[in-house]
């Protein structure tokens, strides 16, 4: 009792002192960032890393996950035939060597030999059967993976047919072009070659699952740290749902010698300010920043920005009479000041984009970045003047002197700011245009967009696989992600030809041509920016590799040096 009285007095004093200091304090923040933590600087720094994530892990079942948090965690504790290296190239994982490739009856057969020393964390062998088990599970209607379409994307035989309802092969998972020849030999039959087949195999949907163990755990498999087995560089030592999870080094991992980190702790921290405060007190080693924190930190050495291959753009619904007019769309494309958006509003390393396939994403057959073609994007030399002109012509063509459009967006703080920005941009530059902003919660937004119930809507898209097609296929006529009644025979033909073209160089050209049709000729969408990510990272954290697709990051090669 006495103790709690004192706690009360203490609390009161604390509250009071806080108010007083809050009133009296000047702007004395900033300063240097190396407060807190031990400043040992010893050579054998503790190989421990403290991180945060903004969400819980929804699922550790490789066939069921759909979100970045899960994929990132899986990349540390599981491993497929390949994994992404620091250059985002597939490097050998469970596969012992590059596969033997044979042509058989017009199909290509890849034969993989698995490593002798690829083990699950209980010491048992990772077998070809474990791969087949997981893949069949992903495709079976009862346990269907939201990413089941990946098998078709990879070109694996019957991958599409098995998940297509009404197809004679629907649900017949044993018809998949993948089989376990023996314990260490996995044979994959490809019906359609793609340049990104090996990269796709680094994706969680293609990981193995320990068949015997998973069957024994049944519906408890992968729900807790002790109901799964691991074959990656790390294992979960703890998984406290809602609070966070801890990794420790996997001693059974075949490449354990190159793994430096002993322990990694990840806590779920949703509030950016909290993450920054934790970083400043040395509790975490890396923190993502929102735009409002960038100015405070951008001159510090531990500040960095990463360009992500995620594109943001405006859909223009061509069901709308005005938006069906190309000059009106051109005016909207040109009148938008992207520099103001990325430099002032976003301020986090995002870059202005007048293109749709992102920069620093994929390289073509000749090794050049896709964006090297039209690096500035499209209509790059035109600006406000041309916008006004196009607007005038457009209005004349549709015979109106004013247009009202609904601008559909989501209800997040950032989306609201961007919507206000767009409204201001457009209404001040295009006479007679009125934008009405319609903010909706995410799910409602998707519903309205999907049913075409909008004039202009804000879109965002990140890649599912390392190829421009993951962006370009969206706008095929009646495509599931088109949603804006855009239809161009020329575009459809280019995209469909590129899908079937086997010559990589020709295919690349077709996709560049398709982007040109979409953006330059048809002006179907208004691209706005390519997203950047501002982060703080302690200088003693080395080799933290981030990836543009699949799992966000790899911890396998991280080292703590000079802490």
């Amino acid at each position, binding site marked *: 009792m006495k103790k*709690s009285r004192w*706690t*009360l007095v203490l*609390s*009161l004093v*604390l*509250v*009071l002192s*806080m*108010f007083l*200091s*809050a009133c009296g304090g000047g702007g004395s923040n900033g300063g240097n960032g190396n*407060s*807190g933590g031990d400043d040992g600087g010893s050579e054998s720094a503790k190989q421990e890393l403290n991180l945060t994530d903004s969400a*819980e892990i*929804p*699922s550790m*079942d490789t066939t*069921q*996950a*759909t*979100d970045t948090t899960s994929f990132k965690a899986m990349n540390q504790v599981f491993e497929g035939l390949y994994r992404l290296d620091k250059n985002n190239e597939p490097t050998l994982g469970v596969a012992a060597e590059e596969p033997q490739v044979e042509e058989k009856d017009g199909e290509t057969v890849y034969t993989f030999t698995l490593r002798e020393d690829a083990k699950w964390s209980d010491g048992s062998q990772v077998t070809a059967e474990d791969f087949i088990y997981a893949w069949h599970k992903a495709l079976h*209607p*009862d346990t*269907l993976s*939201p990413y*089941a*379409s990946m098998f078709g994307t990879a070109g694996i035989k019957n991958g599409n047919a098995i*998940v*297509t*309802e009404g197809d004679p092969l629907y649900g017949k998972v044993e018809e998949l072009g993948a089989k376990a020849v023996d314990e260490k030999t996995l044979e994959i039959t490809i019906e359609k070659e793609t340049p990104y087949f090996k990269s796709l195999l680094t994706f969680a949907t293609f990981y193995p699952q320990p068949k015997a163990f998973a069957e024994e755990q049944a*519906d408890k498999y992968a*729900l807790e740290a002790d109901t799964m087995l691991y074959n990656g560089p790390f294992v979960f030592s703890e998984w*406290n*749902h*809602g*609070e966070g999870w801890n990794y420790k080094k996997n001693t059974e991992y075949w490449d354990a010698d190159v793994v430096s980190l002993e322990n990694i702790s990840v*806590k*779920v*921290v*949703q*509030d950016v*300010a*909290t993450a920054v*405060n*934790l970083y*400043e*007190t040395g*509790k975490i080693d890396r923190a993502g920043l929102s735009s409002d924190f960038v100015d405070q930190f951008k001159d510090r050495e531990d500040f960095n920005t990463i360009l992500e291959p995620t594109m943001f753009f405006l859909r223009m619904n061509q069901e709308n009479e005005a938006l069906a007019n190309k000059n009106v769309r051109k005016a909207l494309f040109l009148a938008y000041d992207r520099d103001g958006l990325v430099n002032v509003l976003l301020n986090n390393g995002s870059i202005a984009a007048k293109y749709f396939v992102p920069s620093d994403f994929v390289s073509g057959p000749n090794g050049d970045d896709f964006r090297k073609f039209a690096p500035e994007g499209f209509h790059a030399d035109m600006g406000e003047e041309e916008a006004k002109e196009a607007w005038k012509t457009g209005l004349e063509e549709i015979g109106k002197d004013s247009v009202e459009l609904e601008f559909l967006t989501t209800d997040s703080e950032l989306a609201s700011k961007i919507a206000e920005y767009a409204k201001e941009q457009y209404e001040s530059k295009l006479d007679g245009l009125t934008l009405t902003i319609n903010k909706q*919660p*995410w*799910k*409602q937004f*998707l*519903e309205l967009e999907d049913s075409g119930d909008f004039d202009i809507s804000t879109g965002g898209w990140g890649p*599912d696989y390392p190829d421009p097609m993951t962006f370009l296929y969206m706008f095929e006529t009646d495509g*599931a*992600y088109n949603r804006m009644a855009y239809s161009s025979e020329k575009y459809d033909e280019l995209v469909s030809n590129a899908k079937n073209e086997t010559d990589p160089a020709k295919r690349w050209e077709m996709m560049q041509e398709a982007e040109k049709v979409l953006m330059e000729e048809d002006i179907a969408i208004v691209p706005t920016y390519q997203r950047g990510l501002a982060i703080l990272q302690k200088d003693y954290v080395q080799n933290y590799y981030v990836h543009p697709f699949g799992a966000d990051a790899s911890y396998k090669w991280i080292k703590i040096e000079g802490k």
Partner: protein
Amino acid sequence: MGRYIGGRVVSMVITFLIIASLTFFLMKLLPGTPFNNQEKLSDAQIVQLNEKYGLNDPVAVQYFNYMTNLLTGDLGVSFQQDGRQVSTIISERIGPSAYLGFQSLLVGTILGLFLGIIAALRHNSFWDYGTMVIAVLGISIPSFVIAGLMQYWLGVKWQLLPVAYWDGFAYTIMPTIAIASIVVATIARFMRTEMLEVLGQDYIVTAKAKGLSSTAVVIRHTIRNASIPIITIMGPLVVGLMTGTLVIERIFVIPGLGEKFVNSILTNDFPIIMGTTLFFSFLFILVILLVDILYGIVDPRIRLAGGKE
């Protein structure tokens, strides 16, 4: 009293069932699917997934299934946290929320009563004004502002307390202060007003005239009579603490239930929406009952059960 409580329990069960049904149907009006990456699922996949989770059945059938499961104590499994039982999720999350809520309520109430009593007894003095300044600040400054300021000054600048996480008593201090501030402010103001009113009553004059010491007058006659309205506001305060700690949980990274509650609505995680709503309603109904019973104890004039002795 027994008969009164029995009657109340029956009406509680009915209220509970009505809440369950209403929540169920309102929830079904939410647009979109409960699936995680809806924007990347094809229509055919959505149909298949709906089938898998029984979401293609008519709403009436789904309602019937849900209520039957509910009566057997089965709250279902989460969509967002693949396959985990709703009851498990609630039970692992409720600990920190309950601890924090209870500690804040305790600290806030005691401190609030203390300040309110002092202010009334030292009416128009420095203590009175000081208390009222604190009360006004506590009510007008939102808890997340207090939380943010504390985190920056006590956590980062002076490094007196841990910035965040949930790992022992030291970690509970800042969140408790942030949440308790509103409780302190509310109760201090009410207590002061009530005390002042009671102190002016004839029976206080009588008690003093009888020769009772002023301590006895304050404790036995004033505080007891002044605390009836406090019990009235305790109900809403407790409920506010149950649901209103979300922001604080977020700022201090406390693995509580508030975050789940809000997130489930944003992501259409139907079983979690139902589970948390029913859980909170249950607590709410229980608190109301407790408050009503407390009335009778504090003030015998308030008859609960039709005057039967």
